[in-house]
């Protein structure tokens, strides 16, 4: 789920979550949903009422504090794309195989398609839309343009986020270090070697500035 191990501010347990939602019978029903099995059909339509029990989460998305209701089955990716309309983050495999949905969570790269939305409480999320400062692109973004570090562009947000995460920890990555840091991202157009050039160029420029 998370690409890098990290210290968690709050230890989360499923029991605590269910308790937070009201526990009891609802908890049982939710648990089964939670495990990916179908519930009985919802009694009301989403257009008029919530389908499942919801929980309010508050977090920072690209510098903005957001507070919204999420369902236990919703992923961070779905919340970003559907509720916050941050469609720069892509759904590619939807099961953590390709890195296409990579975002930064408290600075660490995670596959947002595997990250339960309710766990984002209190955290800081950075997506591809949050990298540039106004008109000024992040050096990684600029380097991807200059070195043609993309083809169709669909996997690009994920690669850029993984690259930004790498360069925030290691300003002078070697080629093997770049490859390792990006090894969770797939580019089906096959532009990897152009992407390495972009990351290398960005690291050089970031050191100079």
């Amino acid at each position, binding site marked *: 789920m998370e690409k890098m191990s990290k210290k968690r501010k709050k230890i989360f347990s499923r029991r605590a979550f269910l308790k937070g939602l009201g526990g009891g019978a609802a908890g049982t029903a939710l648990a089964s949903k939670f495990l990916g099995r*179908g519930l009985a*059909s*919802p*009694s*009301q*339509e*989403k*257009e008029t009422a919530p*389908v499942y029990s919801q929980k309010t989460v508050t977090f920072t998305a690209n510098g903005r504090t957001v507070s919204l209701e999420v369902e236990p*089955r919703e992923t961070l990716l779905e919340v970003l*794309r559907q509720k916050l309309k*941050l*469609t*720069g*983050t*892509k*759904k*590619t*495999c*939807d*099961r953590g*195989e*390709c890195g296409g949905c990579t975002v930064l969570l408290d600075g660490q790269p995670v596959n947002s398609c595997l990250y339960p939305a309710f766990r984002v409480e209190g955290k800081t999320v950075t*997506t*591809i*839309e949050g990298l*540039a400062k106004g008109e000024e*692109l992040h050096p990684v*973004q*600029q380097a*991807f*343009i*200059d070195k*043609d570090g*993309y*083809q*169709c*562009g*669909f*996997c*690009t947000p994920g690669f*850029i986020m993984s690259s930004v995460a790498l360069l925030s920890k290691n300003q002078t990555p070697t080629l093997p270090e*770049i*490859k*390792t840091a*990006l*090894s969770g*991202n*797939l*580019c*089906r*157009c*096959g*532009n*990897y*070697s*152009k*992407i*390495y*050039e972009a990351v290398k160029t960005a690291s050089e420029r970031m050191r100079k500035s």
Partner: protein
Amino acid sequence: MKKHEIIDDLNAAYLEEARGKKAQGKDVPAAASEDFKLIGRATPRIDGRLIVTGKARFTHDLSLKNMLHAKILRAPYASAEIVSIDLSQAQNLPGVRAVIKLKEGRVRYEGEQVAAVAAISEKIAEEALQLIKVDYKILPHVVRPEKGMEEGAPQVHDSANVEKFNEYGRGNVDKGFAEADTVIERTYKTAVEIHHTAETHASIAKWDEDRLTVWDSTQAVFSVRDGLARALGIPASKVRVIKTYMGGGFGSKLGVNEHTVTAARLAKETGRPVKIVLSRRENSLCVGNRPSTFITIKGGAKKDGTLVSLTMKNYTCGGVGRGDRSSEPLIDIYKCPNVKVEEYTVYTNTGASRPTRAPGHVQGTFALEGFLDELANEMGLDPLELRRKNYSSANQGETGIPYSSKGLSRCYDLGAAKIGWDRRNKKPGEGRGNKRRGLGMASQIWWGAGAPGTLADIKIHRDGSVEVICGTQDIGCGTRTYIATVAAETLGLDPEDVTVKIGDTVYPWAPSSGGSQTTPSVAPAVRDAALKAAERLKLLAAAILNVPASRIVLADKKLFDKDNPGVSVSFQDAAKELRREAVFHGERNDLPAGFAYNSFGAHFAEVEVDTETGQIGVIKVVAVHEVGRVINRLTAESQVVGGITQGVSAALFEERLIDDSTGQMVNPNLQNYKVATPMDIPEILPIFVDLVDPRINNLGTKGLGEPPRIPISAAVANAVYNAIGVHLREIPMTPDKVLKALQGKEVSS
């Protein structure tokens, strides 16, 4: 960047030669004689900012007001009879707006459409699918081509499972073999590959009365429009197809998809826009694949390496669809007077094939180029010399019409020099130790001349702003950027000054973006329109400046007297003189008859094989391509890098796996269907032979989409052969196959 310097170094000598010819008054094409400022250089994409900020909108990212979401129920069996379908429970699920049947009777592969749901959310649509009750009578299936060929195998279609679809012959192969000093026969196999585009297939359909608008993740807006019109029984004039950004196609997004028709039907039924996004699993099962091949080549040569006879038999499997015609390279590229080809499709109960980047040529080249290396070894010849020996200047092995231009020998020169061809094992497998290095190469031929009749408009506004309008698609190759570059070059502007409008059937016609035809179709049409616009502007400037129009030049956002550059008018001021905004229609010319138009290339690969683990590491690939004039060096390099990466991936990892007993695919995802990752990528050195074709089009350019994908798997296999002395003859070359081959070699020696 160092890499560019090296490339320019290598090409300098060649360009020098061309200049020398020109100085001597020899035949150098008009297009080659022009000095361009932008064309041929490395131009970053004009839409790069949109892509890197996440603002480029793909079909996945689009949302319409009041939109419903569709999901499709697909057959879980490879072969079955639908006895009954009960939609009632699904229809009663709150949030569901429509449920439709899509199939009655026989289903022939896992993943075939059975029914579909439109609901207010994707999740409700998914739940509704679970409530559709389908009774199947399971029938015997066949999923492996070798079993499909057997007598008494379950029949896939109403006709026989094996169907001959191609036959070719010239000369007399028996006579040829009788004249040969050496004759060998070998069989090569390639696996079924899945395109696995990053963006899964997706469409949005919306009706306004009797007019349908579809946003589609497609390589081909016009063919989707026509396909929808046919499927829905409505005139093409009532259908509009729009493509915004598209996350990879590789052939799997050519033509209309069944699910797009389904979305249109659901939209009609509900009166609301309907969006459908396929899952990764669906993309594995039912939107196409590269057919497997089983190719036997028998060839004979004289002592000096002269080929005298070649036969090829191909059994190719594209599931319920066609196999790939894979004989073109063998028929065409080398001089050989006697050739015979037979190709058969074997039908199985698996998803239908679809064009996959260089369909047929990839598999045919793997077989042919592997065969040539084995023949060279058998005869004690340098594999590269064998290819040079049989070099042809006309197609169909010198028996056809001459190539309009062919820079393959130059590709050989540059590639061999850059990889250090002399470093190869003179005898395959002569190295020692656990890590064996080897070098291999392979040649490439493809078409990619472009589609005559492609249209593009240039609109010049009276404020001096410029639009290029063309119904083509940018599928990741940088089409928008070279359109802007060609227009800007011709009009004396910067690429950023040009607004590019593409990807919509309301724009002028352009062909599907497949088969390496986009650049040689679209760039010449844009050039034609821009030349016409320039002519008009020259007349306007001539009147302003009081000099003959023939002396006016467009450059640096100005029009000026070439004999007196100080006499000038800005582009903007010249445009003001237009009576109204002006549209200039450009068209790609017809191809002059009497010539064959092909692109060429050669890949040189270095590998290291671990003889203990069986793992192959590709160390370096030098890829030399002759595609006429290169319009944008930066994006052209990306094409080459991408083709090589995909080819390395196919050579080492990719294979669709189907359980013989259940008929179901066991790796319909990106975890178990292995594709190359950042860890598997060799050092790649793209080199272009800047040979401008004298007659193919007004820019002398050929397509580059397929070429870099074609020879790479063969070059890698030949390098492995050179390293370990045994040819695997089968891709993917997984470690188990390498170890088995090494074992076999020990036993036989």
